């Protein structure tokens, strides 16, 4: 395996593991995502431990250079991730809208009731 590739992989894995451990400690990520990130870390470690694995696979698949395979793999994984994220954002937006509407309507009801019973000295009825 090329030395530059090796060094790059080592650095990436170190940063990776650092972030994963950090978020495990803070408990700020769902297990689902943690599993995804851990699996990618494990794949990186395996490709480092078995010296000619990356070369072998990329050669078999017809890549001219191993790094090309890694790049294209990374791009596909990132595309998949972004797609997932946008669909989740849309989902969250919808839920957020429903939440804002519900809270605002409830707030109005509470204020109307307060006015009706003069709880904070708020004058006459609304209508």
């Amino acid at each position, binding site marked *: 395996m090329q030395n530059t590739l090796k060094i790059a992989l080592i650095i990436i894995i170190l940063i990776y593991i650092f972030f994963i451990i950090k978020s495990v400690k803070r408990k700020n990520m769902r297990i689902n995502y943690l599993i995804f990130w851990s699996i990618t870390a494990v794949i990186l470690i395996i490709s480092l431990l078995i010296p000619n694995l990356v070369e072998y696979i990329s050669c078999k698949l017809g890549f001219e250079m191993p790094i090309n395979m890694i790049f294209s793999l990374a791009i596909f994984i990132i595309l998949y991730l972004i797609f997932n994220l946008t669909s989740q954002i849309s989902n969250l937006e*919808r839920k*957020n*809208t429903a939440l*804002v*509407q*519900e*809270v*605002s*309507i409830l*707030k*109005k009801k509470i204020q109307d009731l307060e006015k009706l019973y003069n709880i904070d000295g708020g004058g006459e009825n*609304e*209508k």
Partner: protein
Amino acid sequence: MKILLIIPAYNEEENILKVYDNINNYNLDKEEKIDYIVINDGSKDNTERILEENNINHINLIQNLGIGGAVQTGYKYAYENDYDIAIQFDGDGQHDINYIKNICGPIEKGEADMVIGTRYLDKRSSKFQSTFMRRFGSKIISLTIKICCRKKITDPTSGFRAINKEIIKLFSEEYPTEYPEPESTVEVLSRKYNVSEVPVNMNERIAGKSFVNVWTSIDYMLKVILAIIIDNFSIRRRRGKK
């Protein structure tokens, strides 16, 4: 029939009082009063203070949701309070309150589930015919709806519309928030409800500006067309499965 005007307002400090006065004047000589609710969509100006000081019936959205989310809040309110007809009515003074009778007519007679107030049906009834670009955009969107739903809607982007109880329930559960006017029309049409149109008069905005230029309108048009096709497709598929 209990009628509710839903008035979405975003930064309408200059117009909202005028609209409120119009409603009061309209109610003066009618036996059947219409109710209203102003949805303050997180305005950054003094809209909230004006609503509060004048005791105008309103809901303050705790966050800005955009016109679609604001109007849907009104529909939810209408559903909870058991209204028979809900009318979307702009807070910027564009819509003429005297056309409410016309717009409710087909619903009261049971001829339509949704009535759209249209600018283009009768040239004389509306002084404000809007710009060429808007009319052109409307034509194309209307053509798309005709192809998808086989029904001609002359003014699919009109925000002056009335719906009956059944549609209030539908909209309070599911209302498109991205391009609410054309998309909700498609939602209703693809569920095989009756939509009809009546000519209305629209004034130019009392104050403030609407920001439209060529590129944003082309961008808007393309996205709306896509949205219509997707909506129509997904609703039909769901109907098919049932």
